[in-house]
Structures are given as structure tokens and as C-alpha cells.
């Protein structure tokens, strides 16, 4: 017979969602406030700048297009990071996977195949396979050798950039140019909305979201991945091959990175391979992933919101005297705040607002968990 009084808290998914969403929202607000303050002090026309930041993307179809396209790309990199974060690995290699993926998509595009209808599907396939392999490398190093995946993946990023730079300069690029000739139309994603940058990539982003969600929550592979992320020792004890899971997570993530590479070089945005085409977008995926708590279904929404800010910053840069880089401050702050367990004043008030019961004091049998 049990002598204890049990704590029975309704920990449904809705309560959890509200709490996590609340925390993310507050972090974003704080970050924006800080950015506002910075702009206030450094701009000659701060309110113009802020106004542009917040409203400009909606101004014209073209800018809306830029926003949506950017969000699609942010979604894919956000998914890539979400996968590895769910497995509790810190592979930072998405950037390198994007470059390698873009490189192989380019090879398809400039080959004879690129001039047929196979240009797009094979380009994507080549990009994803190449990206997957590139993601596999730090994974296998970690699984077989225990090599720190943060360091190895970061090194591979720089190596990938150098390889692409070299190949463009020496082999692929138009002579003396840092970019290739434009790809044939059959190798470039058609625009979905004419005269904007929104292209087939958007569809792929949406498919990717659904695919990653399904894989994580409806397949045994996904369950194993999440269990490994929760407690790798337990997973081993339960008979799950943690190393296989870790490697496959990083490989799958790499394939997503490769897809993003194809979305860049074969998308309306470029339609060719330039050096440094990726513009550090891959790392923004970290922000998207952690604000979305690595949940695939939340990623596109965060990507949309963040993409909006990025567009706003670009337009603010063009039309006012505030450099777009101010958004770096926002990004950094959001990452830091969301990953902290900060307690802000009035927490109890908010807790009640969001529908969470204060915990009922228990008998000391629950104290055993403390000992």
C-alpha cells in the first residue's frame, strides 16, 4: 500500500506548448526592444528606420516574395538543425552541407543532363546525396571515434567553402569570374508567383516540414532518435543502437542542408553558382530551431517571423541609414534568452495567466527524488 500523496499535474501537450511559446515570445520581444534602443541612439531618423523594419516587407509584391522565399530557406535550415538538436548532437555543419549540395547540383545543371527536364529532380537528388554524405562525416567520426562533432563540423564548413571557391575560380566559373554562367532554364526552379523570388523551393520546404515531422513522431526511427536525445545510455540499455541513430540523424540533416544548397543555386534567387552564395544563412537555422524548440511543425512559423525581420532589416538598410547587421544583435539576444531559464518578475502572475496551477505541496516521499 502506498503511503504517499501523489503529485498529479495535468501535463498535457497544450500546457507545455503554451509555456514554451510564451517563453519564446517574451524573448523575441526583449530582443526587439533592445534593437529598438540601439537604433534609437544610432540613427538620425530612428522612427523611420523602425517603421521600415516593421512594415516595409509588406509594401510590394516583390518584397513579400523576398520574404516568403527567405522564409522557405530558413525553414529548411531550421529543420536541419532541429533534427540534430533532437538527437542532442551539436553538429554545426549545415553551412558546409549547403555549399557541397549546391556544388553537386551545379554539376548536374551544367552537364548535358541539366538541359533536359531531369535538370531539377536530378540536381536536387545530387545535392541531397552530397549533403547527406557531408553530414555523415562528422557523424561517423563521433560514433566510431568519439570525435567532437562541433569542431569537426565547423572545420568541414570552412573546407567546403574553400573547395567551392576553388572550383568556381578554376573550373566551373566563367573565365575570370567568381560565378558560373546562368543555368539552363530546365535546371532552374520555375517561379510560383511571377516576378517574385517565390519558386518551387517553397513547395520543397513545405514537403520537408511534413516529412521531418512524420519521421520524428510517426516512425520508430524518429522515436529512437528522440529517446537517444533524451538519454543515450537508456537507449543503449533498451537495445537501441545509439550510434546508428546519431549518424543517421546527422546524415538526414545533411540531406536537408544539401536540399537548401540546391534551392540556392537552382532557385530564382541565383540560377547559378556564385562563391559565398549562402551568405551565412545556414547559421540562422540555429535560431529558428531553438525558438521552435526543435519542433518541425513550429519551424515554418518561426521562419516566417524571423524572415520578416530579416527582410525588414534589409529594406531598412537600403532606405535609411541603419545597417542591416543590427539584426545580428536581435538574433544573438533571442538565442541567448530562449535557451536560458530566465525568471522574470511577475512569473507567478503569468503562470496563472497561461493556465498553469501552482504546485500543491506534497508529503516528503516526493523528497526522495531530491536525495
Amino acid at each position: 500500500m502506498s503511503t504517499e500523496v501523489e503529485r498529479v499535474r495535468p501535463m498535457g501537450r497544450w500546457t507545455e506548448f503554451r509555456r514554451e511559446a510564451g517563453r519564446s515570445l517574451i524573448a523575441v520581444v526583449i530582443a526587439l526592444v533592445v534593437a529598438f534602443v540601439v537604433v534609437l541612439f544610432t540613427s538620425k531618423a530612428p522612427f523611420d528606420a523602425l517603421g521600415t523594419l516593421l512594415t516595409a516587407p509588406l509594401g510590394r509584391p516583390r518584397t513579400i516574395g523576398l520574404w516568403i522565399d527567405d522564409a522557405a530557406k530558413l525553414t529548411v535550415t531550421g529543420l536541419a538543425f532541429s533534427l540534430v538538436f533532437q538527437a542532442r548532437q551539436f553538429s554545426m555543419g549545415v553551412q558546409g552541407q549547403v555549399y557541397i549540395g549546391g556544388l553537386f547540383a551545379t554539376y548536374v545543371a551544367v552537364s548535358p543532363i541539366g538541359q533536359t527536364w531531369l535538370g531539377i529532380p536530378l540536381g536536387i537528388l545530387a545535392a541531397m546525396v552530397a549533403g547527406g554524405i557531408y553530414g555523415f562525416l562528422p557523424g561517423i567520426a563521433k560514433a566510431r571515434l568519439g570525435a567532437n562533432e562541433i569542431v569537426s563540423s565547423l572545420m568541414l564548413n570552412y573546407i567546403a567553402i574553400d573547395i567551392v571557391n576553388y572550383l568556381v575560380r578554376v573550373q566551373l566559373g566563367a573565365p575570370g569570374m567568381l560565378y558560373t554562367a546562368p543555368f539552363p532554364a530546365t535546371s532552374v526552379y520555375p517561379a510560383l508567383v511571377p516576378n517574385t523570388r517565390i519558386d518551387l523551393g517553397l513547395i520543397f520546404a513545405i514537403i520537408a516540414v511534413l516529412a521531418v515531422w512524420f519521421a520524428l513522431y510517426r516512425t520508430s526511427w524518429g522515436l529512437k532518435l528522440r529517446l537517444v536525445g533524451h538519454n543515450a545510455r537508456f537507449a543503449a540499455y533498451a537495445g537501441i543502437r545509439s550510434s546508428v541513430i546519431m549518424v543517421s540523424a546527422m546524415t538526414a540533416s545533411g540531406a536537408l542542408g544539401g536540399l537548401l544548397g540546391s534551392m540556392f543555386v537552382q532557385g530564382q534567387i541565383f540560377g547559378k553558382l556564385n562563391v559565398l552564395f549562402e551568405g551565412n544563412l545556414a547559421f540562422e537555422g540555429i535560431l529558428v530551431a531553438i525558438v521552435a524548440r526543435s519542433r518541425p511543425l513550429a519551424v515554418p512559423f518561426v521562419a516566417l517571423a524571423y524572415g520578416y525581420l530579416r527582410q525588414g532589416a534589409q529594406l531598412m538598410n537600403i532606405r535609411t541609414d541603419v545597417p542591416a547587421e543590427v539584426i545580428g544583435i536581435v538574433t544573438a539576444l533571442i538565442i541567448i534568452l530562449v535557451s536560458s531559464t530566465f525568471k522574470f518578475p511577475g512569473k507567478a502572475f503569468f503562470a496563472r495567466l497561461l493556465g498553469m496551477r501552482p504546485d500543491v505541496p506534497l508529503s516528503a516521499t516526493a523528497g526522495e527524488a531530491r536525495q
Partner: protein
Amino acid sequence: MALLEAVNIGKVYPGGVVANDGVNLSVDKGEVHAVVGENGAGKSTLMKILFGVEHPDAGQVLLDGKPVSFANPREAIDAGIGMVFQHFSLVPSFSVYENVVMGAEPHSGVRFDRRTAIAEVAALSEKFHLAVDPLPATGSLPVGQQQRVEILKALYRNARILILDEPTAVLAPQEVQELFVAIRSLVAQGRTVIFIAHKLPEVLEISDTITVMRQGQSVGRVKTRDVTEQELATMMVGREVVLRIDRSQVKAGAVTCEVDKLRLMDARGNAVCSDLSFKVRSGEILGLVGVEGNGQSDVISAIAGTRSVEGGAIKLDGRDIVPLSVLQRRQRGIAGIPEDRLAQGLAVGASVAENLVSTRLTDKRFVRSGLLDLRAIKAQAQALIEKFSIRVSGPQAPVATLSGGNMQKVVVARELAEQPKLLLVAQPTRGVDLGATQFIWKTIANARDAGTAVLLTSADLSELLALSDRLLVFYRGKIVAAFRNSEAVNPETLGTYMLGLRAQTPDEMREALA
């Protein structure tokens, strides 16, 4: 006047857990004062408050009659209170003397004066009968010596009061006697010792005064010579405690698992065990007895498949399973309750349902073509929650919200959902309250009655004696004694074998080994 007093201490942890509620403690100078209570009674919390690791929400601590409040352990140490925790706080690669003096190093200017440190440690070690060599790396020492290093740490800082948190948990009976010699020597030299325990025979032997705690409160303070074990147990749980389950009524059946000339090695290439052989039969509980580190846990890990085997065979129903993976062994009918449920037995961040299905991902009822059948998984979880009386709000609740006893029930439910052929159990009721303990014992006994072969290890001799049908004593990786469980087998007997003081001859063992 008492040397150290705690008056009306209250402590509530964030999350609402009431660890201490109006606790009183009064320790006189020069006495050995035991604080007893079962897991969750609040003893460790009280000690942490005395040592400055935690701060009380209510009440006061008085030292030499004056109120004190320690913001951190450093202040407590400066005031003359030293604490030896159950889990040692020793840096493995540092030498003994480095560990002892860390934080209070003798130094000339900025230079760490190693020679003086070594000399001082050696002197202390002699003075208090705590023999240990100051130079080797602490990680390489056996547990009993590591404990001495811990005690030396406190003595190096001139602790007047020494708090020992379950010091005998990892010691065999004779090592406990050595510890008691050291304690008596400390007291003879004017120190005061507080120790936390729940092994009543030891408490009765060494202490002068006992404070009993139960469910966060102090329920009594008695002089040791005035009280009996039964009275103490009653104070601790509030009702009469029956400590044994029924022996198996059925004669044990066919051999389920046979370990044959097993050889296991450790990281340094030393043999953990070699030429080890024994059998477990269906319908019996075989208890592996031994001080921690003598090979029992390694054997269990080897059978489970979480550890490599360097020689010999492990046969399940006659077939060698050594080449098989953990998953394959589970598919053949091996289930296990690991020593540390938080580190190894559960994914605390995942839901109860996810934990319950995690070992059955190749079962077609739950997973087909790689896809999860969420409805079936939820239904199974619901059924198991009811069957094992797990107190939880629902199958989707994260395991983190459960108490220790209920977490262990999740582990037990998962492993015993299907009748396993062989059940490996390690420390099944560590950190589990009495009610859940009884439930778990009954569950294991039921499994045995239904034909499962059970292999059990535990640091708790009374648990082994309560549950096992047969007992094997391990010493240095070898079996030195085998018994059929009966009233004649008691902790003292087992203790002599556990420490290698005696060993049975092969003839004496044959009957119980068969």
C-alpha cells in the same frame, strides 16, 4: 548545552516538495549521533542545511548555542563542520594529497607547497588510524580507501563535527568495523560524529543517541541503549514492518541461463572475473551477494549485453548469447531492471507511453514497416499503468513528473509487461519508498512464480535475504560461497565470505550451485 542544534527547520524545494517540516536535532559534544529514517524522510536535506549546501526556509541552526547561517559549504567548514557524502567528491586524476588539501592548500606566496601537503596528510592518516598512501591517483583506489580520503579531507580542515552520509552503504561488514574503529578514535580525541543511516544493526552498535525522521519531520530522539531495532523501525515507518516474502513454493525448473567460465576484464586490463560459472533456473530468484565492485554488477551487465565479454560463454536455454546484441537478447526473452533508473532505466524527458514501448520497437503490434501505431502504444501504456498502479496523470505525461517509486514502477512495468525468460535485477528498490518497495518485491516474486528465472544483485543485504531462493557470494570475481536461503543465513555469515575471510570448498558449494 548541545554542541550543534537544529531548531524547527523547514525546507520546501521549488516544485512544492516539502523536504523538512519543523525538524529538530540536538547533538552533544563528543557523541556519536545517528539520524535514521527511510529514503525520502529528509535526512540528507537536513544534513545539507547543516553543511551550507542548502538554506532553510524556516528555523535556525545553533552552534555552541549561537545562531549560525552558512551561505555555502566553505563557511560551514570554517566553523568546524565537515561532511562526507555518500557519493564521493574526489577528482579521479588528482593524487590523494591533492584531493585532501584542495581548497585549503599550504602555500608559500602563490606556490602550492606540495611537500608540506604530503607530510601533513601522512601525519593525519596515522593519527586517526585511516591508513592510505598520499601519492597515488585517487581514481585508482578501492572504495574503502577513497572513503578514508574523504574523511581525511574533513579532518584536514579541523572539523570538530563530522557528518557522515550513509558511510557504510558501500562497505562490507568487516570494513564497517574498521570505520567504527576510526569513529571511536575520533570521538576519543574530542570530535563529534553525526551519521545518517538506515541500517539499524549498525546504528545500534555505534551510536550513543538516535534521532528518527519520517516524512520530513523529526519524530523522536532516543538514547541508543534504551531502544530496540523493532521499536526504531516502527518509529521510522509508523507501523509494523514485515520484511520477508515467501520462499518459492515450487521447486525450481530447468536451467534457463548458464554462465560458463566467464572472463571479464576492466579498463586497465585486469581481470574482473575469470572462470566464473553458475546456473539460474526458471522459477527461482538467485541473489548475487558481494561488496560493490567484486564482479556482480559486471556479470549482470555482461548478461544484459551492455558490456563486452573477454572469454567464456553465457547460455540462454542452451544457446550462447555472447555474440548477440542487446536488442537480440531482449528478443530472446531477457529483461532487466538497471541499477540507476535515471541514468539508465528511463528517458526522463519522454512520456510514460514512449518509455513503456521503447524496448518493444520490433514488435509488430506497435511498429509496422517502421511506422508507429500510436493507438496501440497508448492502449498498452494505459493497461500497464493500471496493472502496476502507477500514479500518473496519463500515458502522455513526461516521466520527469513522477516520484522515484513510480518511476521505478514504470521500469518494472516495462520489463515485466511480457513474461521474460530471464530477469536481471539490480538495486530494485534504491531510493524507493516502502510502499512501492513492497509492490516491486511482490511483482518480482510473481514473475518468479510464473516461471521467470531472476538474477538479483543489491547493496542491501536484507533485500537479498528477503527475496532470494539461493545466494551466491562474490569475492574478487569468484564465487566463494553458495547457500540455499534459510533462517540460518544471516548478514554476518555472508559478511565473512564477502570479504574473503572464508571460502567454501567446491563440495560445500555443489548443492547450492546446481
